[in-house]
């Protein structure tokens, strides 16, 4: 082998890219040519320098969270807060889509059934009033649900279109309606001059009437939720205080936070629709903290946990939750 050929092959020899035959020829030439042996030594020295190169870049836990957030941002349904999609989006994962779709279809069916039954009962009530006042106009095909309707003035004048159940497409249509209760006015329904006082009780026999939660019932639900959230945040704070040299385990707090987060969103919207400002404010303050805890990685660092705890302290969220619980208990 000549030196020119050696020079053209030595780099590939170092890269391990030569056949065994060519590699052997390179080795033989080096052993007999000092100049080429020096060239080889220089290249080895180069590779040592390159192998020692330190870039001072590293993969941080925040990078994975950012990737995860961007992935879920792209694939989650519109309208769901981006940061809550970490586990919520799991519901929409391909393997769960059929099950989730089936569950959704069942819920829609139930909601629709309630709406139809409500509509039919309203219709029957109107027919009963028509029977009492003008028997000749009654549709003989319609059966009366009751024989002694209450003498509630104006019920026959209630336009069907204003029935909350017929219009209500929200998930609250599934709310329990065990017994007739005082109906609370709902903001989203338009005022109707022909509608009787909207606080009037429904017919006593209207057992299928949808009754939205009263303000008192909502407050009770919020109070219970706030209590659970306060316990969770205290537990989370104690995790940080009890940390040892290894990464603290916050898996329990993370799971609880995810459950409370979904409930928080629903309650906050309900509070807003009912004009319950104080509840809405405390739930709005709580929500980002629940999001942060819910989005902690499996192996959280002390720094990440400390950061959330600092935000909790700055917002004085635990005190706000305590105050809300106190006010709620005083009102009962």
């Amino acid at each position, binding site marked *: 082998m000549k030196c020119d050929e050696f020079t053209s092959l030595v780099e590939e020899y170092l890269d391990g890219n030569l056949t065994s035959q060519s590699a052997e020829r390179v080795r033989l030439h080096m052993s007999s040519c000092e100049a080429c042996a020096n060239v080889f030594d220089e290249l*080895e020295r180069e590779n*040592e*320098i390159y192998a020692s190169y330190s870039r001072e870049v*590293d993969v941080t836990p925040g*990078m994975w969270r950012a990737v995860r957030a961007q992935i879920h941002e792209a694939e989650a349904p519109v309208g769901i807060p981006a940061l809550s999609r970490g586990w919520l989006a799991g519901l929409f994962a*391909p393997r769960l889509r059929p099950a989730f779709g089936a569950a959704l279809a069942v819920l829609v069916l139930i909601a629709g059934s309630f709406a139809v039954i409500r509509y039919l009962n309203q219709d029957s009530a109107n027919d009963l009033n028509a029977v009492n006042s003008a028997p000749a106009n009654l549709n003989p095909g319609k059966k009366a649900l009751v024989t002694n309707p209450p003498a509630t003035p104006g019920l026959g004048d209630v336009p069907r279109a204003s029935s909350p159940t017929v219009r209500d497409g929200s998930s609250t249509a599934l709310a329990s309606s065990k017994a007739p209760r005082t109906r609370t006015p709902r903001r989203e329904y338009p005022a109707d001059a022909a509608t009787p006082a909207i606080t009037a009780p429904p017919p006593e026999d209207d057992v299928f009437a949808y009754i939205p939660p009263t303000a008192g019932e909502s407050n009770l639900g919020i109070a219970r939720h706030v209590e659970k959230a306060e316990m969770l945040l205290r537990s989370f704070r104690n995790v940080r205080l009890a940390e040892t040299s290894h990464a603290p385990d916050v898996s329990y707090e993370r799971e609880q936070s995810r459950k409370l987060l979904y409930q928080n969103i629903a309650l906050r919207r309900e509070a807003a629709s009912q004009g319950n400002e104080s509840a809405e404010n405390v739930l709005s303050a709580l929500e980002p903290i629940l999001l942060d805890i819910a989005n902690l990685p499996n192996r959280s660092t002390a720094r990440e946990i400390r950061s959330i705890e600092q935000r909790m302290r700055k917002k004085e969220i635990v005190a706000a939750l305590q105050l809300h619980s106190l006010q709620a208990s005083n009102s009962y």
Partner: protein
Amino acid sequence: MMKRLAIDAITQARSADRVTGTLMNSAADLIARVRSGDEEAFRLIFERYARPIISFIYDMVGERGLAEELTQETFVRAYKSINTIRDEAKLSTWLFGIARNVARESLRTRRQTDRKVEMDDPAVKQIHDGRMSPDEDLVNREINQAMHDALGKLDEDKRLVFTLKVFQQQSYEEIAVITGFSMSKLKTDLHRARAEMRRMLRPYLEVPR
């Protein structure tokens, strides 16, 4: 000697990774799980490849913050296009291909001239975490800085091939797939890149006698 140990370690790690991959969490298994919606599987992919990817991208663009962003972009694109990978065993090559495109797009939106502006990256010059360094560390930092500067002076194709071969230890065939270059262009660019780096790093390359 150090070079042999380092290269042997890298080769063994890659072999071990291949062996480990066949025993558990192989690339094909992970990809299948990701396709069925298993987020944990994608997190494993991220943990396995994020470090070499960010190193590669940093070598290409020269800025730490930008390298982090582009690494995230790489994995987001990988997730979205996971169904397009043809050979599951070549996951590393596929990821580097995406990283290469992401880095190239970033470079094209910036000035294509000498990277002297990026060489002033304070993240490179500062003492990491505020620690005081002994003389040995000062020398190493000087070499690191020189290497960083020298890389920046290579043109994009040479930098790409050099980084993939020398730093990422990819084979010629893998580099050809990642870059789309012919074998002859690849070898020529690599040879020229080494010559230029040698010239720029000459003060640090004197063979001790």
